[in-house]
């Protein structure tokens, strides 16, 4: 067991599966294994990590859903705002063959701004997307180098930013 991250950003796919796990429960139907894994990872991190985040897009999607499903999630999860240069970093990440959506989520992990408790980025991004996680791990050295070059160019206000750790929902359940 390793120490759990102090702050995590859930990607949209994880929140979708948590939502769908609840849909199945409301209908009295069996969940899929992926829904169970996401819901268990969400429950585990909720118990051990105080700062749980989502992107603005995920928050906007939840805000349009029925309150009985969405409201409790929106209490647990704070939306991060897009900090200056988030998109610029996301465009750099596209060079590593991440989809636009994956690049944005990863960029939130470094440039997402929490306005409630002032802070930038998260210690980890949690995903159910194994391909994205594998691509991040495989290219981490090159991504880190690119990141350092970019934040050095941005000046001192950005020197403390860092790359998030990538955790799959399965990692969460195995490691913490």
């Amino acid at each position, binding site marked *: 067991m390793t120490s759990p991250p102090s702050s995590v950003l859930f990607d*949209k796919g994880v929140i*979708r599966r*948590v939502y*769908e*796990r*609840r*849909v*199945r*429960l*409301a*209908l009295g*139907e*069996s969940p899929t*294994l992926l829904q*169970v*894994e996401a*819901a*268990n990872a*969400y*429950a*585990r991190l*909720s*118990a051990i990590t105080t700062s749980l985040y989502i*992107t*603005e*897009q995920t928050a*906007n*999607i939840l805000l*349009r*859903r*029925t*309150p*009985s*499903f969405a409201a*409790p999630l929106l209490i647990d999860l704070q939306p991060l*705002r*897009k*900090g*200056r*240069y*988030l*998109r*610029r970093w*996301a*465009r750099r990440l*596209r060079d590593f063959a991440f989809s*636009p*959506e994956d*690049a*944005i989520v990863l960029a939130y992990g470094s440039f997402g*701004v929490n*306005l409630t408790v*002032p*802070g*930038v980025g998260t210690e980890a991004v949690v995903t159910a997307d194994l391909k994205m996680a594998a691509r991040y791990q495989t290219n981490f050295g090159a991504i880190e180098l690119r990141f350092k070059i970019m934040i050095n160019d941005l000046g001192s*206000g*950005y020197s403390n930013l860092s790359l998030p750790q990538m955790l799959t929902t*399965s990692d969460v*359940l*195995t490691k913490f």
Partner: protein
Amino acid sequence: MEKLVVDKDGKITIPPDVLAKRGLRPGDELELVEAAEGLLVYQSGVDDKTADWWNNLSEEDRRQAQAEARRYEFSSEKQRDAIWNEAAESLEVEAEGDEIDLPAK
């Protein structure tokens, strides 16, 4: 794929890493399904967070949740994807106007 061995009493032991990964604890129930593929062990328990959500809903909220669940579950995969792909965020330079300055240290 895990290989399980049945002992003389018909019991099997689930490896500790699988217990941890699936969040299984003593007393949790599993369903054994005799399927065409063979025997399937299915996790049927509900995690604490999901159970708390359901248990804390009022009767009215449960009715609303069930109605929404029926609408959601009976929609097509394409319709569900559309829900979760609403308001996709742009990577373009032109969209950068909503980015905010980092908080002062």
